[in-house]
């Protein structure tokens, strides 16, 4: 097995190689050296901390995420140096918060008891956003505190996952078997399904009301997948298809900008200077990358695509490091999602299983939906690419999710026999 230090070394090699290429192209201002040095030291300190405290969880998760983060940082320097400077600070903060969650949260299991608090917190966060939020790029998803902005829907990802994991764990059997028979299908009764359905529907409605359609789509699919995973009933999965069609049609009729999205998705070239601009420019950038890419710093997408630093960062990756490079990034995400699902399968308790797999599903959905959007395979719904796109909110929240994931992995790494003899395991002393 590869030593965790070796993997960190590999990650940082990729990072510094990227910086070197930017330096050769005169695209690296010198103050980035100190930022990059701090970041590199933090990564090694983290690895040292893992060894010192005896981290026994998944070995690959952390290096994979750090590699994605490093790739994102290099690209952001290339796309917009002043944003990259912020992102370095977020990245360093994210790493610290990640280790706090991993080692500070002694046992994730105690999070289960607050299930309704999580559910209500999700509603409260979204309600506050709807009432006091400001509109950015058409969606009312930001709350301004002084000069800083905060995006509650990112935090909702964490609390909603905790709620769902806790709720589904305690009601799994009833959801699975059902108590009411409708024809050949048995459905759970209102008491079992009620609270869960209530919170999910209100969350989706609030997201739709604030026009965060991408996040709404991710949450909806997340709910369906988690319920399907827990109950293993195809019925729940099949049910999502007509619901998606219905919601999509409703959205198409209700929201003008959904109609624009669909129209520009079907034909971005007609209006490539106005409405279809983003998606057409994204495709021009991606197609210009071909197999090997234009080379870091040589693409046009970084200048041409609006939001190249956030929603469309993958288009810049695909252009500048080509098909092979973007496949490498996709592979990192696939590894990440599959490791998360594997942790879910191996977790020692059901709450942990649902939570870990749920985190994996969430990340998988976010990545798939934004990648399908920028490659014109689905209508575009704006979402940041986890750990790669610019944005402190998304970065910190995903580090909290990674913290929970590794915490579950660590706590599940001890055999049941050790637990049975009453040994305190998985708890950092």
């Amino acid at each position: 097995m590869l030593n965790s230090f070796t993997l960190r070394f590999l990650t940082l090699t990729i990072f510094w190689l990227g910086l070197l290429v930017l330096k050769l192209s005169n695209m690296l201002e010198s103050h980035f050296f100190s930022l990059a040095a701090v970041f590199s030291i933090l990564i090694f300190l983290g690895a040292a901390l893992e060894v010192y405290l005896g981290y026994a969880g998944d070995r690959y998760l952390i290096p994979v995420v750090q590699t994605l983060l490093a790739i994102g940082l290099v690209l952001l320097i290339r796309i917009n140096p002043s944003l990259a400077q912020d992102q370095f600070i977020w990245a360093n903060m994210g790493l610290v918060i990640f280790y706090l969650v991993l080692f500070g949260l002694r046992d994730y299991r105690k999070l289960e008891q607050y299930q309704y608090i999580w559910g209500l917190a999700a509603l409260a966060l979204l309600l506050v956003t709807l009432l006091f939020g400001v509109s950015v790029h058409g969606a009312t998803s930001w709350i301004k505190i002084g000069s800083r902005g905060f995006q509650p829907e990112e935090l909702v990802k964490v609390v909603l996952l905790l709620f769902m994991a806790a709720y589904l764990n305690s009601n799994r059997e009833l959801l699975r078997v059902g108590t009411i028979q409708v024809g050949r299908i048995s459905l759970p009764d209102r008491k079992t399904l009620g609270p869960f359905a209530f919170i999910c529907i209100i969350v989706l409605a609030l997201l739709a009301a604030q026009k965060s359609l991408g996040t709404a789509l991710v949450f909806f699919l997340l709910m369906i997948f988690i319920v399907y995973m827990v109950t293993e009933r195809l019925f729940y999965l099949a049910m999502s298809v007509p619901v998606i069609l219905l919601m999509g049609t409703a959205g198409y009729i209700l929201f003008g900008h959904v109609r624009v999205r669909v129209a520009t998705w079907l034909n971005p070239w007609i209006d490539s200077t106005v409405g279809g601009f983003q998606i057409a420019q994204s495709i021009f950038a991606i197609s210009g990358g071909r197999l090997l890419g234009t080379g870091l710093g040589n693409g046009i997408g970084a200048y041409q695509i609006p939001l190249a630093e956030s929603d469309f960062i993958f288009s810049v990756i695909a252009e500048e490091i080509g098909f092979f490079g973007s496949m490498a990034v996709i592979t990192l995400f696939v590894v990440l999602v599959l490791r998360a699902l594997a942790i879910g399968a191996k977790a020692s308790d059901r709450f942990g299983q649902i939570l870990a797999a749920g985190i994996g599903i969430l990340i998988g959905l976010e990545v798939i939906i934004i990648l399908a959007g920028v490659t014109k395979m689905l209508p575009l719904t704006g979402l940041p690419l986890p750990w790669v796109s610019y944005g402190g909110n998304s970065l910190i929240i995903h580090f909290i999710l990674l913290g929970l994931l590794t915490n579950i992995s660590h706590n599940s790494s001890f055999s049941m026999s050790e637990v049975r003899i009453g040994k305190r395991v998985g708890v950092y002393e």
Partner: protein
Amino acid sequence: MFMSSGIQKIALIIVFSFIFISFGLLYWQVVNADTMLDNPANRRAVLLESRIERGGIYDRNGIVLAQTKQTEKGKVRVYPHGEMFQPLLGYATVKYGSAGLEATEAANLLGMKEKSLVKKMQNTFELPRQGNDLILTLDTRLQEVAYEKLKGKAGAVVGLDPRNGEVLVLVSQPSFDGNTIVEDWDEIVNRQGSPMLNHAFAKYPPGSIMKVVTSAALFRSDFDTTELYSCQGFTIINGQTISEQNHKAHGWVNYDLALAYSCNNYFAEFGVKAGDKSFLQAAAGFGFGQSIPFDIQIPSSSITRDDPLPDKLSLNLFAASTFGQGQVMVSPFHMALITAGVANEGKIMVPRLIDRVLDSQHNIIYNYKPEVWLEALNREEADKVKSAMVLAVNEGTAAPGAIPGVQIAAKTGSAEPGGDQSTHAWYIAFAPADNPVIALAVLVENGGTGGGAAAPIAKAVIEKALELKEGVNQ
């Protein structure tokens, strides 16, 4: 185990979604990469330019025709000769895109046509990049003469070296100044006479110069072209009256005299005798209905409006086509190639405008070699046409282009464009007749007769070409 099969199925769904996205990437990055580059809204080439220094364009003697200069205001594209080489060179602007050679040779000028991997690697890391230089086959000294003569009129002058297809002169009028294209855009676009259109590549009715093509059909028939025919000034074929210019009766003419005097009746009568198949075959042999292998796209010359090269012609249309009326349309550039074919023993060479491409270290990247495009005539046929064209200069309609001391071969054309407009004046010529160094076609739109309007221009260019040739020989 609890939900393990659920997790497995979810994992499969996610992995398949990622595979689906990979295929999406392949679709854009491999299958459709070139299609997207051609999309007019794609500003890749224009934007890359901001970081690449566009290479220069030079004439055959190294005289600058287009160059990028660094000024306080940034990079500026300079055309030292103003409108003389336009619209052939074209323009390359961020605001209005690009046209002409600047557009068709953008890959070369921007250095993006690198074949070697080493060069590719170098380019990835080396900024700013330097584009490649184009060395054209044009000769500025000839261009100058043709430009001065044609200035103020509408039309084109195209001159080639018939032996190797090198384009020596290519003038189109009216034209525009590439230096001020952005400032004057609106005015230029609205100016009379389509200055953006390269008149050398536009199509016109050829009139009597088409008789050179028809000649091939006559030679390949079983009648004797030395036999005499009595021209009455008009003849009626299938109820259609074919008349001579100014209703002049040429009297007794054989093939040579008919071409020299530009006798429509002779070519209509014998052309019809030879048959439409033979005529169309001859036209195909000269490149009608075919795309000309050239760096710039040129519309192919056509026999009828509906079909550039039909299988058969109605008798009336056929009779008119034999002397270049009817629906026959040809570009001055193609006409120069046809003339060069006659001059070069019947072989039309592939026309070449770009002699070589040099990279920023002056290594030759591309070097073009002469190639035969078409064998329009055999040697004997070419000789027959040539002696008739010599006769046209010495005794016939092409006399205004004659040069003392040098035998040239030429043919005039006065093509009716239709309506009440005056005729397009054509003059095709090559010189010296026995050892040609230049073949050219001159067109003056609505200029009147070929001998009157076009011949003096051709004469001046040929004189200059011969003078330069002697200069080299000495």
